């Protein structure tokens, strides 16, 4: 589905990603963990196409296309979804109306007719239920006045509405209490099929009790330095990252 090769990216001249290699296949869930400042969010933002980051080397193939060459909206239309770490509040923009515009613009690009209003509303109802998002929130301005948990649920709601091929969840769990976390994780699990995939970026192992990954990667200084099965997350939780860093130093020494 996505193949990242030797990806280097910098912001304002500072290199953050120093050669990432990662392949995610359909049906898989990959977790990316790592200490603060290791480049986790940068990876998410580079994939989504935020232009503050400059890609200096490497390539990303997404469903046979050169992802790095695409505008953010085209990445979304091709099936990439980023659940933001800090969802933006946009006063005056209705959650539902903008999703309708997004969905219909994507359909138009594919040469399809707009989604009938009835189908759209049915989908809103169904998907907001999935993340237990109050119907009133779905109708309000995007994230305006939402609690932290409501914002994250809204991200998953939007993901459900857009039905992406690859979802990148950027610290969707941070700041959530256990109930909100369960709801969010449950939403993600419900959306999982054999044809889609997700990259779950997280700081805490806790989320991975609910969203069970096929692989766990450790990101350190802009590189993936270790990859293991889901048990690796537990080990990281227990022992922290120092042992990996030490291991790494021994290898390079």
């Amino acid at each position: 589905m996505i193949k990242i090769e030797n990806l280097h990216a910098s912001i304002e001249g500072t290199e953050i990603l120093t050669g990432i290699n990662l392949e995610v296949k359909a049906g898989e869930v990959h977790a990316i963990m790592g200490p603060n400042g290791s480049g986790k969010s940068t990876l998410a933002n580079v994939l989504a196409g935020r232009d503050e980051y400059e890609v200096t080397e490497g390539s990303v193939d997404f469903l046979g296309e050169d992802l790095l060459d695409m505008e953010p909206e085209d990445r979304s239309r091709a099936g990439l979804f980023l659940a933001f770490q800090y969802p933006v509040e946009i006063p005056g923009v209705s959650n539902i109306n903008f999703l309708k515009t997004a969905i219909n613009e994507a359909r138009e690009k594919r040469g399809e007719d707009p989604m009938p209003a009835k189908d759209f509303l049915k989908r809103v109802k169904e998907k907001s239920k999935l993340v237990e998002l109050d119907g009133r929130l779905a109708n309000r301005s995007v994230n305006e006045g939402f609690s932290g948990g409501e914002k994250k649920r809204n991200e998953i709601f939007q993901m459900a509405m857009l039905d992406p091929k690859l979802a990148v969840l950027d610290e969707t769990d941070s700041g959530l209490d256990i109930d909100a976390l369960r709801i969010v994780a449950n939403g993600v699990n419900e959306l999982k099929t054999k044809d889609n995939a997700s990259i779950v970026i997280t700081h805490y192992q806790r989320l991975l009790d609910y969203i069970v990954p096929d692989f766990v990667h450790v990101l350190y200084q802009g590189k993936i330095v270790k990859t293991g099965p889901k048990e690796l997350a537990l080990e990281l939780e227990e022992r922290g990252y120092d042992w990996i860093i030490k291991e790494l130093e021994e290898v390079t020494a």
Partner: protein
Amino acid sequence: MNETVTLTNKDKFLSHFDLVDFSMDEDFSSDKRKEAMELIQWLDFPTSKAEYWKYTRINKIIKGDYKVSAPENEIEIDLAVPTKNCIVLINGYFSEELSFFDITEGIQFSSLSDAKKSSSILKEKFNSLVKKDEIFADINSAYHQDGAFMHVAKNVQADEPYYILNMVDDSNIISNPRNFIFVEQGANAKVVLKTINTANTGSFTNMVSEIFVEKNAHFEINKIQDEAEDSFQIATEQVVQADDSTFKINTFTLNGAIVRNNLNIDSLGKNTMTYLNGLYPLKGKQHVDNHTYLLHREPNGESHELYKGIMGDSSTGVFNGKVFVHREAQKTNAFQSNANIVMTDTATINSKPELEIYADDVKCSHGSTTGQLDEEALFYLRARGLSKESARAVLVNAFASDVIEQIGVDAVKDEIEKYIDDNYQGIK
């Protein structure tokens, strides 16, 4: 020996009115004209040295070569105004042919010249609110051709909006439309005051409206300024509000080379509610200047002022809003806000919100913000699949929405929303 007489700008400007015949005017109105002409003798056009005109140069306006022109008799135009009551002025003159009325008990709605013949309230109050030291207002008092008159009797509720269409259909027209609106105690009415220009070149509209909102009355006026691209407009509204009354004005400046709005609410009674809203989506080299003045003279008044600008191309916006709270006006709540989005490097905004408070038990705030479209929000919307253009349009719409929500006339709301949609869908 030949003597050369140098004409001043003012003389040249006033000479445009030499051929206008005011002999049919009523006596009381002729007297007012004479008074105003006297005043004009002592006044001169303001320069940018005057604080009140600091950011708006009027040279282009006063040096224009204009003509005063009654419309040709046969005008075929479908105004498509969604109302049963509409006064149409063409080039400053009342058009009986295009105006239409649905007679309603308790509401007098007519041309100003007709009302001058019969209305005692007009005779009593006409030109009583206008600032005498404002040359453009005096010029209007002295040389207005016609205008709209509205008198809503006590406790009469007007359901339908009343339209005043001020149309210019020729080039280089100078006109001084004059409106007079009196809303009696407990009455309720809404007006749409719209300027449209179907010709292209260099006209100047100098409009004055006097508005009286009596005790416990409610009045809303929606002002749409859709001048030609290189035409000028100065619009002055003089308003008084008696106790317990509500007044709302929504000003939409859509086009015009130089547009200046002087909105003065010189007296507010006890327990009044006042809303001043404005939206100026500008493009090209437009210059729009909104000056507002609000005097809280009595206790328990509340005022909300919200002006928003979307500054495109090389446009210039000016906002100068002054709220004055008299020492008697305790428990006043006055909120003022001016927000602007600057879309290009060449657009400019001068914003000056002012509060002057002499009472000690009040809640007042003012603020001004100027910025670009929120990049974070743009990226968020694009990451969800909205094109760059749509994302920008969505944000511009959202920015304008809280002003648009204030409109109490559905047709106007639709019109402004459509204008924003049409004009900001393709912005870069």
